[in-house]
């Protein structure tokens, strides 16, 4: 059965049609052409499909598209403002925290979820916050350092603004 969904995605009011069986991940990628959110496993075990739903970190492959009716969804495409990158995106580039990049969208969204609630994370808190995001290229070292750098930068700019 196909149904109509309206919700906010990356700040835009969006309407789309889905099959009731379709997951949010498939709807984002196939109906809305937002291919920044990636599929690595479709069983919630790799985190490559991570999005925020009403501020909460979720695997979009474990969410039926219809569940986000009226919700506020954030994907990697919504992280940057018009003309400048989010501090986490900037820190990932500066810190060489990505190689192939397939896990990067999910990691960026997970890092944002962490820093939204805790701007002074320890290394261990960062590691557990991104434990749901598998990366096979980097060994996580530079990813963790970049998230810590982003947190420091956001703390500094928070003080200024």
């Amino acid at each position, binding site marked *: 059965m196909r*149904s109509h969904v309206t919700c906010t995605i990356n700040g835009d009011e969006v309407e789309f049609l889905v099959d009731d069986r379709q997951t949010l991940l498939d709807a984002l990628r196939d109906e809305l052409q937002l291919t920044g959110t990636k599929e690595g496993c479709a069983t919630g075990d790799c985190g490559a499909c991570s999005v925020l739903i009403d501020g909460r970190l979720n695997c979009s492959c474990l969410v039926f598209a219809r569940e986000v009716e009226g919700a506020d969804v954030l994907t990697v495409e919504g992280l940057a403002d018009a003309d400048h990158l989010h501090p986490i995106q900037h820190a990932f580039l500066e810190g060489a925290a990505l190689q192939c990049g397939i896990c990067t969208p999910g990691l960026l969204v997970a890092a944002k979820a*962490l820093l939204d609630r805790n701007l002074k994370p320890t290394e261990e808190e960062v590691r557990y916050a991104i434990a749901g995001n598998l990366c096979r290229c980097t060994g996580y070292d530079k990813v963790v350092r970049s998230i810590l750098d982003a947190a420091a930068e956001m703390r500094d700019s928070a003080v200024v603004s």
Partner: protein
Amino acid sequence: MMYTAPVTVDEACQLLASNSAAKVFAGATDLLPQAQAGRRLEDVLVDLKRIPRLMNLEVDDQGWTIGAAASAARLAEHSQLRSEYPGLVEAVALIGSDQIQNRASLGGNLCNASPAADSGPSMVVNEARAVIVSTAGFRTIPIADLVRGPGETSLEPGEFVAEFQLDRPAARRADAYLRFTPRTEMDIAVVGAAARVAVDDAGRCTDAAVVLGAVAPTTVRVGGIAEELVGSTFDEEALARCAALSSEACRPIDDKRGTKEFRRHIAGVLTTRVLRLAAERASEQR
């Protein structure tokens, strides 16, 4: 397949009563991976997360009421629940990554009835109750009676769990939960062990219980723990005897996550450690 999202308990009950192939869900963190592995989705899926009562998490003098659809993350973030039931919150907080935590529900974790469910042992050791509802009304059962075996609950057709109830903890009583997994996160318990102990002013044990997970078709309440510990100060010999009781009580299987012998041995190791942790917490309380 049809997706429905009722906003009242009655509406949900009607949906289940009118369609035998309807199935409730909250986080779908077991449902969707199973569908991905080939299991056919039911014709009607009933999303419970829009029913306020099922998302409820509140406490009063009588005790705690936890909506069956409330996410593990909300439970873990509730500071009072964390202080009164640290073990239960530990168990719930171990159900998968942050992504899974924001969806997995207590109701889903228990009703999926996996022998390795992390919330099972803690809910049983804390003598929680499940409030079940259908068009015939509400009924309450001890949590231990909810799960019958792997993938099988005691729910009748048309029934679903609305909420869970927990008493307020007595003074100087505390629980704890530990599990063994190869990875530090994103893993399924090879063995889980929940303990609840109470102590007197001198730190001597006045009550103790251990419930194991992933070592039998359902959770296992280990017999003889209280007899071993009451009156003791959790000395090493007593804890060692409890470990032996736990290993004895297991009816584990060999599977891709562990061998029988390993599970039996780990059940003993975790029993000693979880009792010690619960005892420390109980005596710390004023």
